[in-house]
């Protein structure tokens, strides 16, 4: 079976209006830049997006928000995006804010075939409203269900033709979790290599989870907070 896509346009060709997408990344770190650009270009609408953040105004998922392609956003932190805040407060955008660990674990639950998980995050807060609470060993937990997504779109450092992926440093974040969690997974990689070039012992996402893979181009890798120190004497 050939998992190779020619480019981002090719990789996303089966995504249609109204679907649910998971997008990897934390802030702008490890986001699938090529696929986001292709989604913007294609103008797919009414999307539900699951991603830890919503990009910034002019990059990442922010680009899709500008084009009003997103109907609903499921995220944990969106503080970097004024257009997002505007659409939310005006009611144009439906938003579900959930704890970051809950977001991660609901992805993992989907990937691991677990229909729901228990987490203490959000007990006693508005996150718990309408949710089942259960006590184990004297401590309260919320029942949170596994995500259901049509596509996961992830960004990796290296990948091979079998779909095996490795990520670089903290660009890993939600990517391997989302890669496991959707019906179909699209991976864009900085470097596509032949099978056998990646050490089987250090694969972060086994190829079984990835259906489409391609080598991306022109990564901008924008930094949100460029913090540095002076060279020590």
């Amino acid at each position: 079976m050939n998992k190779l896509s020619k480019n981002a346009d090719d990789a996303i060709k089966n995504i249609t209006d109204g679907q649910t997408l998971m997008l990897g990344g934390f802030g702008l770190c490890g986001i699938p830049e090529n696929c986001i650009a292709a989604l913007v270009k294609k103008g797919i609408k009414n999307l539900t997006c699951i991603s830890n953040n919503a990009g910034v105004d002019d990059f990442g998922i922010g680009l899709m928000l500008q084009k009003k392609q997103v109907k609903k956003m499921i995220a944990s932190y969106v503080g970097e995006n004024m257009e997002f805040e505007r659409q939310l407060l005006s009611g144009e955008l439906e938003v579900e804010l959930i704890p970051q660990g809950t977001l991660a674990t609901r992805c993992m639950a989907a990937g691991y075939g677990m229909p729901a998980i228990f987490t203490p995050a959000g007990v006693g807060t508005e996150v718990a409203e309408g949710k089942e609470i259960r006590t184990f060993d004297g401590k309260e937990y919320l029942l949170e269900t596994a995500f259901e997504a049509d596509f996961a779109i992830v960004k990796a450092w290296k990948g091979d033709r079998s779909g095996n992926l490795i990520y670089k440093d903290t660009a890993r974040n939600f990517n391997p979790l989302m890669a496991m969690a959707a019906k179909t997974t699209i991976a864009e990689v900085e470097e596509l290599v032949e099978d056998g070039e990646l050490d089987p012992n250090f694969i972060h996402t086994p190829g079984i989870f990835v259906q489409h893979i391609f080598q991306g181009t022109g990564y901008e890798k924008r930094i949100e907070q460029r913090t540095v120190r002076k060279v020590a004497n």
Partner: protein
Amino acid sequence: MALNKFQIAQRIAQELQDGFYVNLGIGIPTLVANYIPIGINVVLQSENGLLGMGPFPIEGEEDADLINAGKQTITTLPGSSIFDSAMSFGMIRSGKINLTVLGAMEVSENGDIANWKIPGKMVKGMGGAMDLVASAKNIIVAMMHTSPSGESKLLKSCSLPLTGKNCVKKIVTDLAVIEITAHGFKLLERAAGVTIQEIQEKTKADLIIEGEIPEISL
């Protein structure tokens, strides 16, 4: 004299013990890393997937793929490890983090904390804060005692949407170190030259005062 934010961080650093794994939130908590006592080794966790967070990179060596939970460019250290977000919050939920320091907009006398939302005004999201406060055994809040408009941030009960219930163990403000006990706020230390009366006036709940209240020593 009230502490500045660096001194708040410095006081909190006194709570560190050798071998601690520590999660520092954004803002004043981040500054705690600058005051780790000599001889004490702590490992900083960044919940986006790193244990062993190092200092900011030397200029020119920033790597977009290596950031902390505040989206700042950082470095690793010998002994660091990288992992995905599920494992990151796994270690948080299972109680492996010995100390969590975070900021707050309000803290109540039973240890509730509010720091993620002002209805109709500010919508940023809770990020990892709800997971952290629901899981950590040892939570210290670092904040100013009052809001910019002078309102007490220490309350009988929080008015803002909660981040977590009954979770804060200690508060370090510009004026005082306060422990959350079963009976409410217990004043442990006061900033040099700040009177108990002033602290009580700026706290919208009764303070428990037992014996002499020493000044914060830095």
